[in-house]
């Protein structure tokens, strides 16, 4: 019945309102902002370790 994406329903439009629109919205956001930089840090550290010859 419900569409996959529903219109914003909070009283006042707010960034945090967008994170509270469903059970997965906050989870997806936090995983994105935590995991993506971790991949970037991983690659940098890997390059550094290889350069140091370890």
């Amino acid at each position, binding site marked *: 019945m419900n569409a996959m994406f529903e219109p914003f*329903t909070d009283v006042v439009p*707010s960034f945090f309102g967008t994170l509270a629109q469903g059970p997965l919205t906050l989870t997806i956001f936090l995983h994105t902002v935590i995991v993506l930089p*971790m991949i970037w840090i991983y690659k940098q550290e890997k390059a550094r370790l290889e350069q140091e010859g370890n």
Partner: protein
Amino acid sequence: MAKRSVWSDNRFWQRTAAWITGFASVLLIWLTFDTSAQISMGTDADIQNGVTKRVPAPTVINYKVTYEFNKKRQHEIPVIGGMNAEGTSAFQEKEKFFGRDDWSEAEAAELLRLGKLGSQAKNCMNCHTLLGNGAYYAPDLTKAWLDPAWGPNGSMQAMTGKSTKEEAMAEFLQHPSQYPTHARMMPNLGITAEEAKGLVAFLKHMASIDSNGFPRNFGKMQGAVNGK
């Protein structure tokens, strides 16, 4: 020499922890300010201009407050002064509060302050819940004003023999032991007539706060007795 894994590298975990801590700090500080803005009380001008605030001005006591199911948000929301076409507050329909519907912003604020201080002095939260804070020994008072039991055909209003919701509530608050219900009896707390007036204003204002449908299912309960 064996190749060192990044996963066992200290610097990788340090940088990861620094990123998550820093990002979470920024997010939480931002959230604090965002929340402050959202829960700050509106003004009478907002009501006059039809601006919906989560916490309306004290002058909301001059208006009719109802609890209506909002299709878009899928829960009940307080509707102030009648409903408009979008299903939100129209801020039109007035309702007399202790015989008046022209409480000024200063008068209404003073009454609400009296009620708030009264609720703290009498420790309502020791038994009741107010906006999620307090106990569940006695009924949740967050939406007590909207409880039909206090309305025109409600059992509580009938029991007190008063003709309006606010007078019935004020009467009950002053002499709770005279009006026993099937539920736990409220003790007599020595609430004066003036304090009771303030407390009822406090309750009416609290009911008009948009609490995202909390307490859940209040509006769906037939009679909504005890605000469960």
